[in-house]
Every structure is written in C-alpha cells, then in structure tokens.
C-alpha cells in the first residue's frame, strides 16, 4: 500500500492555489462581484481552496471572449486542431499522477481509480477526437449530370458546457474534446461541488490553446449556469445532470432555438441469467465482479448498475457469493492506492443516500449488507463515507425506481427471460444496462430488447472513446463519445451547385 501525501501536506505531488478565478480569454480574471466560495474536500470535509462565485457579468465576459475567438479557431485546419488536442493529451499524460491525486482530493474518489481510469481515459479521449477530426469527411451527392450537392461540416460557434461533479475532469473532457475538435469555442462551467481540479488541468494546458477558445466560469448553477444556458450568443448547450434541470435547459434553449445534449441519469438494470452459475469458473468470477460494480466511484455514476436482477433458480447461491464479494471491497483513505471505495462527493449527497436507505427500509426492503455510514476514524471522520449497501426488494419500491447516486444496489429476482425484460424496462430511465449470460443468443436478444442506450454485455463500466454513450427515455437526448459526437457540435452546410449553362426553365 502507498499513500499519496494530501495536497497541502509536505511531499504532496500536487498543489492547489489558495484561490481560483475565472479563466477567460486566456487569462485568469477575478469575478465581477468580487465574491468567492469555499471548496471543501469530501475526504475530510476541510476547505482547501476558494473559488470565484461567477455571475451573469462574468458569463457575458466569457461568452464575448469565446465569440471573439470563434471565427479564427473555426477556420483552423483539422490538422491544426488535432495537433492542439494531441498536445493536451501528451501534457496530461506527462502529469498524470499529479492530476490523479488532485482529482481524488477534489471528488473523494479513490486515487486507484483516477490513476487507472479517469485520467488515462481523458488522455485517450483527446487523442481519439484528434484522430476523428482528421478522418472526418464531408460528402458529395450527384443530383443529376450537372448538379452536385456538397455537404460540409462547420462549427456551431460558442458552446456552453455544464459539467457534473462525479468525474470532474473526465466529464469535462467528454464535452471539450469533440467541441474543440469540431472547431467550436467553449464556455465551461464546472460543478460547484468540484470546481478546483479542472484548474489544475488548465494550469498545465493553458499555453496550448489560443486565448478565448476555452473559457471556464465558476459558480453556482442559479447564478452562473443559468445565465450561461440562457445566453443568446450560445449556439448549443451540453449538460450532464438531472431531469428537472435538463428540462429547464431545454426550456431556455427553446427561447434561443439552439440544440441541447442532455445526459440525465438512469436506474440501470444488471441482469444475471441462470447460466452464469453453470460453473464456478473465471466467467462466474467476472459476473460476480459485475454485480459489485454498483460501488464503483461510490455509486456516483449515471450508469451505476443500481438494480440487480438475478434469475430465481440461482438466487440462493449467487447472492451469498455476491455479498461476500461486496464485503471485500476495501473502503478507506482515497489517497491510499489500495482503497477501492472512497468518500461521497458532498455532504448533501451523503444525506440524500442516507435518506434513501431510510425509505428503502420503511418500504420493507431488506438490507443484506451495509446500510449505514462508515466512520473511518481520525481526520476521515469529517468525510462522507457510506458502506456498500445491498437491498433485497421488488421493482415497485422507490429504491428500485430512483437514482440514489450512492453505493447502493437493489436486488430482485426474475423467473424467466420475459420476466427479466419486463422488470428491466419498468423504469423511467434508459441510460445503461448490463446483461450476463454464457449464451450469446440470450445476451444478444436481451441487449436489443432493453430500452437503454448502452447495454454492457458480459462486462460493465467500460467507457472507451469509440463507443456511443447516451440515454433512451428520460435519460436524455443526444450521445457522447464516438466520432458521431462531432455531428453534435457541427452544422451541416450544403452547397447546391449547378454546372449547367442552361436556364432552369421556370421563367
């Protein structure tokens, strides 16, 4: 086991500034109203930096900077923009360990995860879109012998991106990489719960991006996010968050007639067909791991496999193994490299999870393990830790229908294939799902019948850049990742050209 020194302690490999302003037009500028808010780490609950409290004035300034940079950036060649993205990726990779520690301290997630997943995925994402924009082509349609329709991709202009707190840097990257590759300029608002780590990243890459192309305005949703989403010069809003705010953003977008991309969460079913237990082999072990994936990132993932559906015929043997697997998840200091589950990202998140554990019990669900806060002692007593929790109940219970966004899975059983699909689709959401079976036909059919944008089949929680991610139903609209994301950040320009010498014949 190794423990990274906490930021601010002697020997730490990363240092946060005592204060972060807005990053606008290539430089840091203080907030117009001069106000700041404290930023605590969920690891201990202690404040480690303060952040500019942005308002509409700051948003106006950032959008103006982005607007000013849009024409020149939009005219750069794909090769030039790809070069910038590749340099960003290289710079992140060279500083991966420091960024990973910053992200862990900011969000409470284990450094094991930021070292192995969040930050390497961010690096890969920038490289993927650097490649994708080089390879993207327009099209030519031959309308008749003398008429040709040319289709060009053009950037939208200034795009607004509102980032969630569960993967602060990776989620910012998911939005930034395709937007910048496509030639847009960006005003990005980090979540107010996790506003600082993105600035550690910015300190490293600011010199690579022309002034005004990437702007960051901090602040609260109501004070900074709302004026950004409403801004008349913004040509698109991309948001990850929850349903009510998603609707409000669509409402604002309708006022400006601009597109939105919304990623609004889920209640992902994770289905285990009986044949997974045909043998106690490596595949069975993989499926058991798949069950325990609900605790990844403290359950703070929109695609958390928070409903486990186990076929009745194996329930009595599968579940004891699964519980034992969950109980081996190591909870501890997020900066310990052995820690598998760290702190919930904020106090209100912590309280909300406890309120769901409460209503789950009131509804009659049975706690099979966990079900309480974890007091890890010492300085960690001030942090927000919850034991991985397994509930047993039925799909009409609220803990089966609402996104708890914590390390909590609700387990039920199903009798046959039809029953599994019925339960899986009995939800308002459709973001992710998992299917586990040794039978390829069963897995394929289930994957096609489940109403969700991403069905992990015999795996879970993998997020490669080259696979489309997004929701059905109330989980949102649009996709992230994959080269198709470029389309979400581009206009189509059609030139309809006649090469004929003859009049068209109307007049």
């Amino acid at each position, binding site marked *: 086991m190794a423990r990274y020194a906490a930021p601010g302690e002697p020997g730490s490999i990363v240092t946060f500034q005592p204060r972060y302003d807005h990053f606008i037009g290539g430089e840091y500028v203080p907030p117009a109203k001069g106000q700041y808010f404290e930023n605590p780490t969920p690891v201990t609950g202690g404040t480690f930096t303060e952040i500019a409290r942005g308002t509409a004035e700051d948003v106006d300034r950032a959008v103006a900077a982005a607007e000013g940079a849009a024409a020149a950036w939009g005219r750069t060649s794909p090769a030039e923009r790809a070069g910038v993205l590749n340099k960003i990726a290289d710079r992140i990779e060279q500083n991966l360990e420091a960024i990973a520690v910053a992200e862990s301290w900011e969000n409470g997630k284990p450094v094991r995860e930021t070292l192995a997943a969040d930050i390497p995925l961010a690096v890969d994402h920038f490289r993927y879109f650097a490649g994708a924009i080089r390879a993207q082509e327009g099209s030519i349609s031959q309308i008749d012998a003398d008429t040709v329709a040319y289709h060009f991709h053009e950037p939208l202009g200034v795009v607004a991106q509102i980032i969630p707190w569960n993967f602060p840097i990776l989620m910012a990257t998911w939005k930034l990489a395709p937007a910048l590759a496509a030639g847009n300029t960006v005003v990005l608002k980090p979540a107010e719960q996790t506003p600082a780590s993105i600035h550690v990243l910015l300190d490293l890459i600011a010199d690579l991006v022309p002034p005004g192309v990437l702007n960051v305005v901090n602040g609260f949703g109501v004070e900074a996010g709302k004026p950004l989403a409403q801004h008349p010069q913004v040509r698109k809003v991309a948001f*990850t*968050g929850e349903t009510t705010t998603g609707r409000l953003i669509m409402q604002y977008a309708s006022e400006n007639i601009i597109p939105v991309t919304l990623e609004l969460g889920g209640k992902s079913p994770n289905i285990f067909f009986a044949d997974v237990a045909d043998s106690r082999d490596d595949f069975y072990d993989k499926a058991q791991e798949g069950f325990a994936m609900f605790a990844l990132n403290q359950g703070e993932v929109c695609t958390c496999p928070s409903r486990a559906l186990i076929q009745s015929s194996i329930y009595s043997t599968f579940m004891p193994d699964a519980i034992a697997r969950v109980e081996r998840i190591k909870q501890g200091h997020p900066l310990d490299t052995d820690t598998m589950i760290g702190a919930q990202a904020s106090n*209100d998140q912590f309280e909300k999870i406890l309120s769901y554990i409460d209503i789950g019990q009131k509804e009659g669900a049975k706690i099979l393990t966990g079900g309480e806060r974890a007091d890890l002692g010492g300085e960690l007593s001030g942090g927000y830790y919850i034991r991985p929790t397994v509930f047993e109940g039925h799909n009409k219970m609220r803990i089966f229908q609402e996104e708890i966004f914590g390390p909590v899975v609700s387990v039920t059983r199903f009798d046959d294939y039809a029953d599994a699909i019925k339960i899986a689709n009995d939800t308002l959401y459709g973001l992710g799902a998992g299917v586990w079976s040794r039978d390829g036909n069963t897995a394929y059919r289930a994957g096609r019948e489940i109403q969700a944008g991403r069905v992990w089949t015999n795996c879970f929680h993998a997020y490669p850049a080259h696979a489309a991610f997004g929701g059905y139903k109330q989980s949102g609209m649009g996709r992230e990742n994959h080269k198709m994301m470029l389309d979400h950040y581009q206009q189509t320009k059609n030139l309809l050209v006649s090469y004929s010498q003859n009049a068209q014949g109307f007049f």
Partner: protein
Amino acid sequence: MSVQERRPRPSGKRVDLTDAAADLLRRLTGQHGPLMFHQSGGCCDGSSPMCYPLGEFRTGRADAHVGDLTVDGVDEPIPVWMSASQFEYWRHTHLTIDVVPGRGSGFSVEAPEGVRFLVRSRLFTDDELSELDDV
C-alpha cells in the same frame, strides 16, 4: 440543527416541510419573490426538490401537482410539482421537505446559501391513503 427544528410541521396532505425548511423559504421568498418546487429525478444533483421562482419552470401535462406548502409569513402557498410518471412510483409515500448543509443543486435557488433542500419520505398509513385525493 436540533430534533425540534427537524420535526415535520402539520400542513398539507402529501407533502410537508420542516421548520428549518420553512425558515429558509421565508428568506428565499424575500430574495426571489414567490417560489415553486419541482422534484427532480436522476443523476448528480437529482432526486432532490428543486426550488425556483414561481413560473420559472414550465409545468405541463407531463407533471403532477403534488401539493402546496403553507409557510407562515409567505403570502401564497408554494406549489410542489413532480413529473407525472415519477409520481406514479411515489404516490404511496408522504414527503417532507427538509434542508441540510450542502452545495450544488442544478439551478435551485438555495445553493448559494450553503444549504440544500432534501426530501424525506415515509409510507402513508392505510387511513391516510383512503383520505387522499387523486392527483
């Protein structure tokens, strides 16, 4: 916050609020004018009651009007809404809007105060269920 402050106040049928939430709503009404709630679902700041200036959030056929909160010192009752499809999964539970220290809540107006509205729930009794009007 003391237990006394957290005790649900007797108002409304499906939805109540704690004294602490009432205090906050009085202050927020002073700052923003009349208010409304819309209970959110899903993702990072979700599954939480979002508080907006009245009319800021457009409700429609897809929404259920769950109840109104009466707050001493606030002229008009504060309506509480939820998406109708979500309400179908919630209708057997009584809701109490509380407030906890926290940060971040979409565009909800309380976040800059360093607090966060939170829903606490309990099951309705059979007697209560028989007396409820359909929403």
